[in-house]
Every structure is written in C-alpha cells, then in structure tokens.
C-alpha cells in the first residue's frame, strides 16, 4: 500500500514577508458549503447557532471566529470553515463538502490594505470594510473571497488550482508596496 502524503496548496510557497506585511497559509481544514432551502433561512441559522455557535451570515458578512467561521459566499450560500458540519444542518440546507477545493491564506500587517488596493477592485479600507465584512470579488483575474478578520488582517480564499498564481500576485504587490516605503 502506498503511503500518501497530504500536501497543502501553498506547500513550499509560504510564508513570505515584505515590508512588514506577511502572507501565510492557513492550515487545511474542513470546508462545507451550506445553502438554505427555500424559506429555511431562519431555521438554518438557529441550527447553525446551536451546533457551531454562529448565526448564518447576512449578505457580505462573516460570523464566528478563528477555527469556526461562516462566511457569506454568494447568493444563498455560506462557507462553513473549521467544524465538521452537524447533521442537523442537512434538514434545512444543501450541505456539501468543499475541503481541499480552496486555498486559504492570511495577509497581515500595517500595509495589508495597500497591497490589496493594487489587486482587488473593491474598497477594503477599514472605514468601508470592517471586521466581519466579506466580499466575493476578484484578485487580478481570479475570483476570490476576502474577509477582514482583524484591524490589519485579511482571510483570502481562491480555488486551490490557482494557489501559485495567488501567491505570485500577492507577493508581487507586497514587494511593490514595500519598495515604495523603503529607505
């Protein structure tokens, strides 16, 4: 029997740091898409709260905290990150395993906003995009999900197959921002 090794999407690529901004991979975890059935939004939110401690996120919002998050992921869908989904969710929603399909990275540091401003066509400054806010948008030409997890930290998700491009684009922007403020 061949002994297979689990390899994370950014294996060998991260972490990196430029000009006080760091980019690191978030450990592979359980990802589950949760799409409420028609008219089941409230019941699902209650079930989610009971099983995993967070409400179903509103549009452009994320709930929960590190280790157990629910992020709004598009029309009628949220991504549950961390916990093994409780079977009680299946009564009210289509629940589908998405683990390993996405790459999760954390961009952190005082100029993280400046880095993202070079790549993402949405205003992600603190005044417009606060902790717990999330957006489905683009990073260069990739579709991503971006969530503010702290005053200077963001969670970025992209398709796993785009991991290398994601790191390349982010690192190029990080170098640019660092060079601008060097010396």
């Amino acid at each position, binding site marked *: 029997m061949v002994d297979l090794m689990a390899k994370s999407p950014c294996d060998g690529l991260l972490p990196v740091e430029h000009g006080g901004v760091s980019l690191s991979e978030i450990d592979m975890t359980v990802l589950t898409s949760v799409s409420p059935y028609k008219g089941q939004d409230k019941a699902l939110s209650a079930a989610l709260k009971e099983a995993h401690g967070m409400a179903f996120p509103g*549009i*452009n919002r994320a709930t929960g905290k590190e280790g157990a998050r629910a992020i709004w992921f*598009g*029309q009628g869908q949220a991504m549950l990150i961390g916990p093994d989904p409780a079977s009680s969710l299946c009564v009210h929603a289509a629940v589908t395993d998405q683990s390993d399909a996405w790459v999760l990275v954390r961009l952190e540091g005082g100029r993280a906003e400046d880095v993202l401003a070079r790549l993402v*066509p*949405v205003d992600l400054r603190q005044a417009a995009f606060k902790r717990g806010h999330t*957006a*489905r*948008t*683009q990073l260069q030409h990739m*579709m991503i999900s971006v969530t503010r997890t702290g005053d200077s930290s963001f969670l970025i998700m992209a398709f796993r197959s785009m991991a290398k491009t994601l790191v390349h684009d982010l690192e190029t922007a990080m170098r640019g921002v660092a060079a601008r403020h060097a010396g």
Partner: protein
Amino acid sequence: MRIKCPHCGERDRREFYYVGDAVALDRPDPDAGDVVWDDYVHNRDNPAGVTRDLWYHESGCSTWIVVTRNTVTHEILKTELASKVKEAMA
C-alpha cells in the same frame, strides 16, 4: 462602467459577464409555434437608448441581474435580481 449588484453594491464592470437581452426571462411556451420561437431565438431590438439586459455577477455573488441601462449615455438606470423579476412575472 460600474454596475450596482443588488447584493454586493456598486462593482466594477469586469466582475460581470454580459449575457444579452432580458428576453430570456420570458421564454415562450413549447407549443407557441415557429414564428414566436424564431422571434425569441433570433430577433433582438438594437435600441440607441434604454435597453434591458441580463448580466451575471460572475466574479462576485453568482447572481443573475436585470440591468436597465442607456446605450447612448452608458447610464445604469436600474438593477434588479433576475429571480425577483421572474417571480413578479409569475
């Protein structure tokens, strides 16, 4: 050009995919006959002015949106969720 997604708010045009005339929401009955179907499949107005299209928020929330816009001024007059428009037609 910026389009206001009913979910995500105002977003850059590059996040959207243009589909075509919103006539697709009004599909004729299968037995409507050749003339009606020919019209539905092939014939489109090409107005210099207000038009109603379907757009897809491809790199955003994956929503179909009915966009009412002016082809002369590029003004976006109205955006609605296609699902809501379709429900209202029923």
